[in-house]
């Protein structure tokens, strides 16, 4: 069992998938989140996620980062940088799905 968990973790890290704790939000919420990603995250990271004042968010830029760390960044921001905390706007479930969507390159 322990071995299995370890393998899953390695698989998840290798494929760049977040270990999904929450179910995906419904289709309407997914559409809202993708709109937010494009237009609001896009004002710093670029609408095509190639970066701007903030770093690029393309799959190749994110694939080697631990997904949970990115979920935390979305929710709590990065102190000392302009990245704001989105907690309040976004639930844990939303943030996790957004990170997965970025890793998949959804909406590009």
């Amino acid at each position: 069992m322990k071995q299995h968990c370890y393998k899953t973790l390695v698989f998840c890290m290798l494929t760049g998938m977040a270990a999904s704790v929450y179910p995906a939000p419904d289709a309407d919420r997914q559409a809202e989140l993708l709109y937010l990603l494009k237009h609001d995250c896009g004002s710093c990271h670029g609408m095509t996620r190639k970066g701007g004042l903030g770093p690029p968010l393309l799959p190749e830029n994110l694939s080697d980062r631990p997904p949970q760390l990115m979920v935390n960044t979305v929710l709590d921001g990065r102190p000392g940088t302009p990245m704001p905390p989105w907690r309040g706007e976004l639930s844990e479930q939303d943030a996790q799905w957004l990170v997965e969507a970025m890793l998949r390159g959804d909406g590009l």
Partner: protein
Amino acid sequence: MFPCNFLCRSASQARFADAIRSYVCLFLLFVLFSGLYQVANAECLMRGTGDLGIVIERASGSVQILDTTAKASLFRVEGLGDLSHASAVFSRDGRYAYVFGRDGGLSKIDLLCGTLDKRVIQAGNSIGGAISQDGSLVAVSNYTPGGVKVFAADSLELLADLPALDASGKPSKVVGLVDAPGQQFVYTLYDAGEIRIADLSDPAAPRVRRFPDIGRLPYDALITPDGRYYIAGLFGEDGLALLDLWKPQQGVQRILNNYGRGKEKLPVYKMPHLEGWAMAGRHVFLPAVGQHEVLVVDSQSWKEVGRIAVHGQPIFVVARPDGRQVWVNFAHPLNDTVQVIDTQSLKIIHSMQPGKGVLHMEFAPRGENVWVSVRDADQVQVYDTGTFARVAKLQAEKPSGIFFTARAHRTGL
């Protein structure tokens, strides 16, 4: 096509009949070519451009050319690339708009013909631009690789490349690029925290002066309409960095040092813009960072004289050209609202909800109307600034920046 190859012969032989035929031939040629000329220019307008402008359609990589008198769209120009966060300046004859795109594209648009006249991809990732005092140079500021590139305004030929390396050689993103009198461009290094003045009197030999240690993470800057003061907003600390371009030897001065002190800052969902200097009498109106406030500053002493509580975190704080009103829009998630401040009483005299995603406002040159882009409604709305009534509504795809040709004749815009 035409049996005109006898034209040369007919002149030398000077025969009457041939001469008549040659005149007929010339006439036919004239008719043919004038016809072709008209076909080639069928789409171009014969009119002035003083009441024209453009609106950026940020998601579709296009712009619409606007007639602010008829309150109508004249053309749509496509193929401008990634226009998230795009801005524009105008040639001094008001015929061309230079559009700076996020993907590093610099596009020159012919307002009368509704065509993309020239386009170059000059960097990987850019943020804004400026046109020189004499209109001959267009400068673009870049994030990747950081720096400023200077182009000939007519041909878009690259004339100068000004890298933005800090003291240790690390490249920096460039923000707050403006033109200043004396063929100068002034800009700020975001990562390095430095202001630079580049004198392009001789584009082949630019002279750059550096002003380091202005403070942490300067995110944008503005220049006063007289071209004298350059002010950079700091994200990483409280206060603003001020450089007097008439006395640059005095160096950078910190102003409004206690701005924000003692208050817990709210998350900033969108960086405010400092362009569009809002000045009324001796008061300057600035967006507070991370607070639901507009700051009122005395432009003689550079001291804060008041704060006005507003609906959300302000993004653009812009004065009507006569300085009697200041209009404010807001960051996500309160970006459905616009508020109007009376600059004499410092009170909000009007609030309205044009729709979700109000991204930009541009005044008609003498201020009777303001044009508002409403992203989520796919509309540009035009308001009467006296009655606040909506007087027109135009369709546009995810509109953002609106820019009118009157900017051609103003320093810093």
